[in-house]
C-alpha cells in the first residue's frame, strides 16, 4: 500500500488531465482520485465530489490533496472534516502548484515514501525552475 492522491480542480477536465499526467509517472502504483467541477459538471468545486474522492482512496497510507485555486481549499477543508473517522487515513492539503506538485507527489508515493515525505516533496515544486534563466 502507499500514499494516495486526490486532485481537486474547478474544472473536470483539468482534474482529469492532472491525474492522467501524474498517473503516467506512478506506473499504476498510486491510487489517484479526482474531484473536478461542480455537482453539475460546471466550473467550481463540490464538497460532495471531494468527499467521494477521499472515500475512493480510503484505506491507503495517507492522502495528499492537491488543488488549484481559492475555494478549492475551503471546500476541501469541509470535505476533510466530514471524512474524518476513527480509522481514516491522515489527510494533508498541499499548497504546491497543481501540475508539478501532483507529478512529484505521484513519483514519491510510487516508491513507498510516507505521507509527510510525499507532502514535503510536492511542496518543493515551488522552487523547481521550469526554465534555466542563467542560460537565456
Amino acid at each position, binding site marked *: 500500500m502507499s500514499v494516495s492522491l486526490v486532485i481537486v480542480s474547478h474544472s473536470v477536465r483539468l482534474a482529469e488531465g492532472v491525474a492522467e499526467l501524474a498517473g503516467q509517472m506512478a506506473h499504476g502504483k498510486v491510487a489517484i482520485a479526482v474531484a473536478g*467541477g*461542480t*455537482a*453539475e459538471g*460546471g*466550473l*467550481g*468545486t*463540490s*464538497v*460532495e465530489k471531494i468527499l467521494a474522492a477521499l472515500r475512493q482512496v480510503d484505506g491507503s497510507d495517507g492522502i495528499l490533496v492537491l488543488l488549484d*485555486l*481559492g*475555494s478549492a481549499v*475551503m*471546500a476541501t*477543508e*469541509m470535505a476533510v472534516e466530514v471524512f474524518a473517522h476513527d480509522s481514516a487515513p491522515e489527510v494533508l492539503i498541499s499548497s504546491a502548484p497543481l501540475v508539478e506538485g501532483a507529478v512529484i507527489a505521484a513519483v514519491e508515493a510510487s516508491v513507498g515514501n510516507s505521507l509527510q515525505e510525499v507532502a514535503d516533496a510536492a511542496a518543493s515544486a515551488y522552487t523547481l525552475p521550469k526554465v534555466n534563466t542563467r542560460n537565456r
Partner: protein
Amino acid sequence: MPVTTEDVVRWITRVAAVLHENRGYLTQLDSPIGDADHGINLDRGFQAVMDKLPTVANMDIGSILKMVGTTLVSTVGGAAGPLYGTAFLRAGMATSGKNELYEADVVSMLEAALEGIKARGKAQPGEKTMLDALTPAIAAMKEVEQQHGSMAQLLQRGSDAAETGMKATIPLRATKGRASYLGARSIGHQDPGATSSWLILKSLAETCAQKSR
C-alpha cells in the same frame, strides 16, 4: 418582539426571492473581479433551500438554519458555498432547540455565523470580502442590544451598517479570493460577497419590520 420560527421561514423565503431578483446584479459585480458566478451560485443554492424548507418549517430555528447551511454547502459551487454554509451551520448551532430569538439571541446567532466565516475563510475585515459588511453590521446590532433597543431598530441598524460596509469595499484592494489575483485592478469595484451579505441582513430587517407594522 422576538424573531419566531415563522419569521425565520419568511426570512429564508425572502432571501431566496431577493437573491433570485439580484442574481444578475451580483454576477455583474463578480464579473470584473471574480469568476462571474456569485449570483448564479447563490440563486441555485437558495432555490435548493426552498425545495427543502417545507420539510423543516415546523422544527426549531436551529434545525431550519442547519438545513440551510448543509444545502448551501452541497449546492453552491463557489467560495460562497463553504462560507455561507458554515455561517448558517454555526447560526443553527447557536439557536439549537429555540423557537424564539430575543435581541441577545439574534446577536449571538450572528456572531457565531461571523466567527464561522472568519475561521473558514481565514480572513479579516479590510480584505474586500463579506466580512466588510458583516463585521460592522454585527457590531452595530450589539450596540443596539446593549442599549436595550427594539428588535426592529437592531435589525435596521445592522442592515444599514452592512450597506455602509459594503460600499466601503469599493476602494479596497482584494487580498482574498479570486479577486486577489487582480491585485490593484480589484480597486474601484464593490465586493459581490459583501453585497450578498447586505442583502441577507436587509431581508431579515424587512421581514421583521413587516411584522411590527
